[in-house]
């Protein structure tokens, strides 16, 4: 068991470095001259020479990679070409907002899908089971940004229940409970929209997992010894599907980030998504590379954590 974990841990730096190297090569091998996108439109030839020299665009690719890699090892991700500030700081400023959005989407996903999954599992094959399954599949088939836009128009604009965009009311310096309610009102719509795909996936997972468990011998034995339906559902039928939920959530982190990027743009949420998009348009390499570093780290670690949780809960792996 430990040998497996150590091997996985060794893999983390290898995978992350591979991703950062791939993106480095892609960014710098792409056609088009980055300094033009970066340094505005109205300069003259001398101005572009000056900027190219400042950002070191002229030195050959391998040397630039070595300098970049050595600095990353020391924790310095370089400064954003456009904004002159440290790429790590720029991203760090926006991480809390994205984290809040993705975490609330996950929590919402779990809170809805576990009870719903359990409820439909007990009615497996019935009318309601079919309907919920179809609804989940439809949710999973809708493009997030399209749902987001529709939601903004209907709930925010027409009904006026929720704010149209942003993370807080303009200029409000409310504190304490008012600030929290204001934040929740702004978080409601984007979190629900982002959670739609999670709910779809997790509900179906819990449903098929629990339905399968209910057919197993140990559930029949539990019933034969007179345990109540509630105990059977929660203690006997739920644990194993919850494990699959954990592993699947671990693997979906990448997709969750992608969804967050799109939802942030539609709802004006001040997360990392928009920084990435503007960095893409301006070919701001330090930000792009720092971003890929962060995302790949979190995806790899999420997978690892999911595996550790799996091993922790299933004794056969722990003592296997």
């Amino acid at each position, binding site marked *: 068991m430990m040998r497996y974990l150590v091997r996985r841990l060794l893999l983390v730096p290898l995978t992350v470095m591979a991703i950062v190297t791939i993106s480095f090569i892609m960014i710098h091998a792409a056609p088009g001259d980055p300094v033009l996108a970066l340094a505005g439109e109205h300069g003259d030839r001398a101005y572009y020479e000056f900027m190219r020299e400042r950002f070191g665009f002229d030195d050959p690719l391998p040397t630039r990679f070595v300098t970049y890699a050595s600095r990353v090892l020391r924790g310095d991700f370089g400064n954003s070409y456009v904004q002159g500030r440290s790429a790590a700081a720029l991203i760090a400023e926006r991480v809390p907002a994205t984290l809040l959005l993705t975490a609330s989407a996950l929590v919402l996903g779990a809170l809805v899908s576990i009870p719903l999954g359990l409820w439909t599992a007990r009615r497996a094959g019935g009318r309601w089971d079919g309907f919920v399954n179809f609804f989940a599949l439809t949710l999973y088939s809708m493009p997030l940004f399209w749902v987001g836009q529709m939601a903004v128009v209907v709930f925010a604009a027409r009904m006026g229940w929720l704010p149209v965009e942003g993370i*807080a009311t*303009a200029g409000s310096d409310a504190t304490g409970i008012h600030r929290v309610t204001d934040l929740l009102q702004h978080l409601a719509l984007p979190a629900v929209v982002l959670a739609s795909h999670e709910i779809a996936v997790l509900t179906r997972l819990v449903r098929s997992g629990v339905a399968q468990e209910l057919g197993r011998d140990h559930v029949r034995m539990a019933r034969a010894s007179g345990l109540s339906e509630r105990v059977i559902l929660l203690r006997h039928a739920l644990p194993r599907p919850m494990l699959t939920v954990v592993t699947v959530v671990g693997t979906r982190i990448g997709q969750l980030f992608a969804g967050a990027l799109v939802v942030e743009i539609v709802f004006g949420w001040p997360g990392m998504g928009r*920084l990435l998009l503007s960095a893409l348009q301006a070919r701001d390499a330090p930000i792009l590379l720092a971003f890929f570093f962060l995302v790949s780290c979190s995806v790899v670690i999420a997978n690892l954590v999911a595996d550790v949780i799996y091993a922790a809960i299933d004794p056969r792996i722990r003592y296997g």
Partner: protein
Amino acid sequence: GDRTTESRPDTLVAAIESDPGQLNPAITTSGGVHTVADLLYNGLVGLDEHQRPVPELARSWTVDEDGRLYRFHLQTGVRWHDGRPFTAADVVYSFNEVLLNFHARTRASLRAVLLSVDAVDDSTVEFHFRQPYSPFLQQLNVVEAPILPRHLYAGRDPQTSRHNIAPVGTGPFRFVSYAPDAEIRYARNPNYFGGPPAIAAVIFRVIPDPTAQVLALEAGQVDWLFGVPAAQQKRLRGNPRVRMRQTTIGSGGTNCMVTLAFNLDRAAFTDVRIRRAIAHAIDRNAILERIQFGSGRVPLAPISSRIPLATAPGLQLPVYDTALSARLLEQAGWPRGQVLDLKLLPSFRAYAELIRAQLRAVGIDARLQLLEQAVFVHDVFDRRDFDMAMISYCNGTDPQIGVRRQYVSSSIGAVPFSNAAGYRNAEMDSLFDVAGRLVEPADRQRTYLHIQQLAVRDLPYIWLLESEATQAHLVRCAGFAFGAHFAATARCR
């Protein structure tokens, strides 16, 4: 809680499309930064509604040695937001250390002709030029030459200075706070030398999605939009609580003209009849009505009609006439259905699709290639690998700044948004040199008329549309100025 701006009457909430990233207008020409940062700073000479120079940090000025020496007398008693006094040393530092290195437009136009910038005393600055330079007064406002506090920037790299996100300026508003990708807050500068603004605070809200901006305005959660997309204008026109106005003055560029450039090096365009036929095939009114819903003007001359110096009475641009176009194509022996590629930036997609449809009617198949900014500039200006390209040239407040680079042969090549057509005409080159040195406006106007006649004759470009920005604001606020200090004169109830 009430989310509308009524709840805080003396605060103006303005929506912006993207987070500026940093708030130092002297090191960049990016519209995003200037739209937000210009309120904190000043230039030596401002520009009024009609782009005429008006005193700002410079109380008065004199021009001697027939246009080679400009002497500016600074306002007295002006203080930076941190209380330190504003002096001539700040102006000298801003030009020599920052603007002439990092501000692309100012550097491109002044570095070659400016000899020196000297502070005669604490309140007088002199600019010495190698040769007469007439457009100088048009290039000293806060958009082209913002003045930075020397005592905070001297000796440090202006691109990475801490003050870029905690700016100290002299402008009508002073900096309060900056929450990235969310909100930037300013407060009124009580002892602003131009008189304290009526509004107590300005808040910039970052709302990337244009539709969301319009919804926020209608819901009263935002007071001011810098730009309303054409499609939404019809909707807002019917809203009693909203006022809209047109302007060609933008922080990213002024008096911009959407043009279609022909690559004259390509065989297809050596025959002027082909270029003229294409011009006749394009219905510019359809572009104005269908894409901009009437916001903007169909150009009557190669240079923006908003620049007084460039008025060109009696000039006739090719009129929309498909029959004439087809005939011209036939005479020039154009093989029907031959493909031309049209490269453009994604923002001009609607224009290109309309033009493609119109060209198809006369037997020209235009294949669109939308390119990302870096690739577009590289293909069109560096490698000149294109048949036609759609480019928005901002003519600026003086033809020497924004128009000259389009036509002079010296700017063909690596410089972006320069002579895309690759137009080489010695007469045109000399005319522009003369226009730059002339001092009398009447003489300059005659020269520019001659330049425009040459352009219409040779038709290196087709001038499609003088674009205008449509700004919108709630009726609770009024008195907005034009240009960078839009909020300085506004008041809200």
